């Protein structure tokens, strides 16, 4: 057990991995490893957050992330409330800040926020006394997804440093890709992003990654392959000529995997578009750790909730860009 991992947690919010140090990321992963065991018990519950109230504030539809956060909160004995924008006063014209202030008046301890616009969790963190956890904001960050990806890689490979990770898919619109690039590079992995030029942000190299447009090259040297969902809307906006062409050039199928390392890990944040970015052969094959990612998501979110809600008072804006 190294001394570095014992670094104490002081952040009240988790808004992105860009702000975190490698030590802080390791503290979350270490805590998640300890908490994973709780979900294997006959009684899957510990009293650590008894009496705390957590609000899932989802301005964008989500099933797996919301369910995962809700289970994480419940396994720590916290009370949870789910608010979806479609059924809240936001449809009556209330501002986000007013909604948050009203919820705070009900004495809640944490907000788990998802929004289609980048920066909304940060905005809420500036106004809230409660902790704020980013559950995905626009194309900015989705820190808990990247943390569960890091956790899953570490579980299978015992390390992150030195691994070659290729991320293939719609990098431009992906908060998952951004959070993963921050997390992986901080922990010493070598990251390659692979996509058609239209789905790659300009100057993405400045985040410390390699760029390729050749999927075979991305697969060949990789220890880990992360696929991203290709949304059908991208075809309508003419960023890709067609789903079929994308599949031919970037889809992961049996043929493309022939040149892969035998111990390759295949990951996907879900939901998978089978037959587009990933064939069933690969999604269900021995290399796939997609369902491990889902299982680990609960442990990682338990760790994040435990750490931020337990953070000491007096650091209300830590991690928020004011």
């Amino acid at each position, binding site marked *: 057990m190294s001394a570095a991992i014992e670094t104490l947690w002081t952040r009240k919010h988790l808004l992105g991995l860009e702000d975190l140090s490698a030590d802080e990321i390791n503290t979350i992963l270490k805590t998640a490893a300890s908490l994973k065991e*709780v979900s294997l018990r006959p009684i899957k519950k510990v009293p650590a957050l008894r009496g705390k109230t957590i609000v899932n504030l989802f301005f964008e539809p989500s099933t797996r992330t919301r369910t995962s956060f809700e289970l994480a909160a419940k396994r*720590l004995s916290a009370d949870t409330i789910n608010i979806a924008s479609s059924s809240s006063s936001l449809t009556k014209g209330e501002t986000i800040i007013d909604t948050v202030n009203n919820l705070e008046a009900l004495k809640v301890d944490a907000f788990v926020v998802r929004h289609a616009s980048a920066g909304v969790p940060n905005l809420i963190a500036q106004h809230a006394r409660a902790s704020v956890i980013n559950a995905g904001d626009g194309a900015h960050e989705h820190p808990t997804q990247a943390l569960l990806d890091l956790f899953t890689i570490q579980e299978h490979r015992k390390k992150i440093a030195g691994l070659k990770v290729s991320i293939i898919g719609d990098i431009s619109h992906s908060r998952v890709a951004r959070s993963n690039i921050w997390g992986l590079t901080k922990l010493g992995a070598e990251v390659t992003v692979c996509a058609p030029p239209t789905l790659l942000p300009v100057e993405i190299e400045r985040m410390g990654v390699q760029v390729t447009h050749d999927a075979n090259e991305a697969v060949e040297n990789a220890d880990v392959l992360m696929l991203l969902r290709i949304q059908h809307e991208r075809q309508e906006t003419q960023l890709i000529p067609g789903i079929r062409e994308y599949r031919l050039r970037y889809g992961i199928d049996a043929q493309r995997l022939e040149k892969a390392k035998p111990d390759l890990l295949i990951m996907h944040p879900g939901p998978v578009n089978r037959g587009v970015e990933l064939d069933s052969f690969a999604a269900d094959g021995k290399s796939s750790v997609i369902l491990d990612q889902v299982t680990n998501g609960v442990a990682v979110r338990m760790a994040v909730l435990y750490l931020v809600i337990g953070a000491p008072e007096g650091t209300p804006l830590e991690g928020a860009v004011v």
Partner: protein
Amino acid sequence: MNRAAAKPGLLMDAQAIRRSLVRIAHEIIERNKGVQDLALIGIRTRGAVLAQRLAQEIAAIDQHEVEVGILDITLYRDDFSRVAPNPIVHETDIKFDITNKRLVLVDDVLFTGRTIRAALNALHDFGRSKCIQLAVLVDRGHRELPIRADFVGKNVPTQFSDRIRVQLEDTDEIECVKLELSGGAV
């Protein structure tokens, strides 16, 4: 100052610790009429080390292996919101079913009893054991809850502000039990 407490300094050396553990191992076997259905649960960190050693002593005496589990009680503390920054969570590792087992909970020092309270709550979540007994290396008094030990290495009268420092080879490289005053003077 009128101290009705033990003097600061060395309370137990390596040999004294070993003798206490051998005696406790005998007492555990005697009390439970053998090792049938017996299992040891060590409380992290030093209780876990002591539980492993007790298991070895019991095996040496009775020729039977007893199962050993490790319990981390961080998630069951009653001072979660008052301890800052928050304590590190370590893994709980109990690989066997505790239902109908005779459990011996093992810790290094028994003080207020709050750690044991947390451990009892935690064990309750793993199933219904037949009974739970408590073994500690040092009982220093000042209980805040109705809890007592079944097996004690050494009873040490202390002031509330004193500190008992248990060091074991596995975790600390040296092996001894010391009493330190609150001011740090020894």
